[in-house]
């Protein structure tokens, strides 16, 4: 145990652009999900009319609660969705450009060599390994999570375009198995986003609360100050 009297040194953790992108994205994603559920509620089934759909939807026909929807009715949901989609995509593209140009992607992208450390991290979390494995800015599991969530964002955007313009972008739509399946993947992504966010927030508070302050001020004073 460290003595509370000795403050941990602060390390510069997140660039301002990353912090702005993070919080903007949190708000925009919430709006995209709320308006998306409003749109989904207009027809809460999948598949061509009169034909069975091969994939499961536990929420088939289930009315969604009002508090989970944004837009008031279908037209409102559509207008919110197609307005927020712009800043949502732009934020994502700017974030990815920044990661690429700054070299920050090295601390975030999960690569094959992260597989073994990821396993060690998992063992630590399960209590099967006593000491915390050494890590860089992020541990291997975090890299996996932050790589995965970017891919999920890309899937959401691409399936979104695929169901927005299924005729004009028919090549994209058929990549996802056609309009009905693209709409299904777009919907599945929502629940993965929600699951990810709940886990993400829970882990921040349970494992490394200092990372919340770091995402706001940019400075990190927590337990895992090491850097790549």
């Amino acid at each position, binding site marked *: 145990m460290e003595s509370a009297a000795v403050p941990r040194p602060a390390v510069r953790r997140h660039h301002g652009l990353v912090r702005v992108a993070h919080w903007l994205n949190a708000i925009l994603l919430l709006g995209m999900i709320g308006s998306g559920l409003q749109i989904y509620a207009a027809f809460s089934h999948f598949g061509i009319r009169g034909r069975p759909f091969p994939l499961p939807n536990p929420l088939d026909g289930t009315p969604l609660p009002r*508090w*989970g929807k944004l837009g008031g009715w279908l037209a409102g949901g559509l207008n919110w969705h*197609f307005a927020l989609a712009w800043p949502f995509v732009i934020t994502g593209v700017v974030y990815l450009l920044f990661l690429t140009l700054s070299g920050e992607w090295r601390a975030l992208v999960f690569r094959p060599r992260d597989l073994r450390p990821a396993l060690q991290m998992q063992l630590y979390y399960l209590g099967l390994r006593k000491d915390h494995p050494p890590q860089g800015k992020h541990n291997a599991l975090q890299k996996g999570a932050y790589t995965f969530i970017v891919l999920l964002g890309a899937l959401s955007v691409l399936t979104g375009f695929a169901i927005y313009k299924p005729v004009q972008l028919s090549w994209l739509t058929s990549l996802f198995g056609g309009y009905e399946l693209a709409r299904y993947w777009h919907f599945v992504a929502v629940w993965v986003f929600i699951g990810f966010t709940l886990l993400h927030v829970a882990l921040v508070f349970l494992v490394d609360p200092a990372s919340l302050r770091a995402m706001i001020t940019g400075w990190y004073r927590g337990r895992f100050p090491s850097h790549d």
Partner: protein
Amino acid sequence: MTEPLPRLSRRDLLRLGLVAGPASLVAACGWDGGPTLEPRLRAFSRINDWVSEKIFLSSSRLAPEYPVSARTPPRDFPSYSITRNDTGSFPALPASWSLEVGGLVRKPLRLTLEQLQALPRITYTVKHHCVEGWTAIGTWTGVPVSVVTQMADPRPEARFLRFDSFDSDYYNGWDLKSAMHPQTILAYGHNDRPLSILKGAPLRLYAPIKLGYKMTKYVTKMTFTAERPGGYWEDQGYPWFGGV
């Protein structure tokens, strides 16, 4: 590196609340944006109309066609009319119905159903996209809007088309680029039969490049305009372009 996992402090919980509170309020209560934001969202929708027409819409790309065997059974293919929703009965066919073609044209026309059927026709089996998210497949037969347009010879200042109907006050405004698409037709046939009253008889607009609500049923009039006409649902907030 062997510290015990920290427990949630009261301060952490407060922070969590600070983040989660406003976040949940944004999505709360099926909010439409209120009197301030809702009109701005509608205005923003015009940008998407522009992008949809100028960037996404191709004048020549055709919607894929399906085999006749892929047709959706009629009982599973929904249809509605404003009049029927309001009164329970179908819109009444005006005596001596004919299609009126007018507005900014050099040769205003009146075409009977027989005259329309004598014009070049196309038939296709395509997927119908409803704004609600459902799809269905059907066969449609009719005369391309571009053929009728050529006969009426629009003036250069004509930039939009307005389709009126005898279904209460239902109407739609179209951009000319979509209206001149080779698959945009005035349909009088559905699934190898004459169009039924359910589907908009005697004449309806059909186009697999648009959402269902853009395809005026029970058409009476086609008017070329310089100003952008609205539409029954469009005036209530639905995206004006409605292209797929």
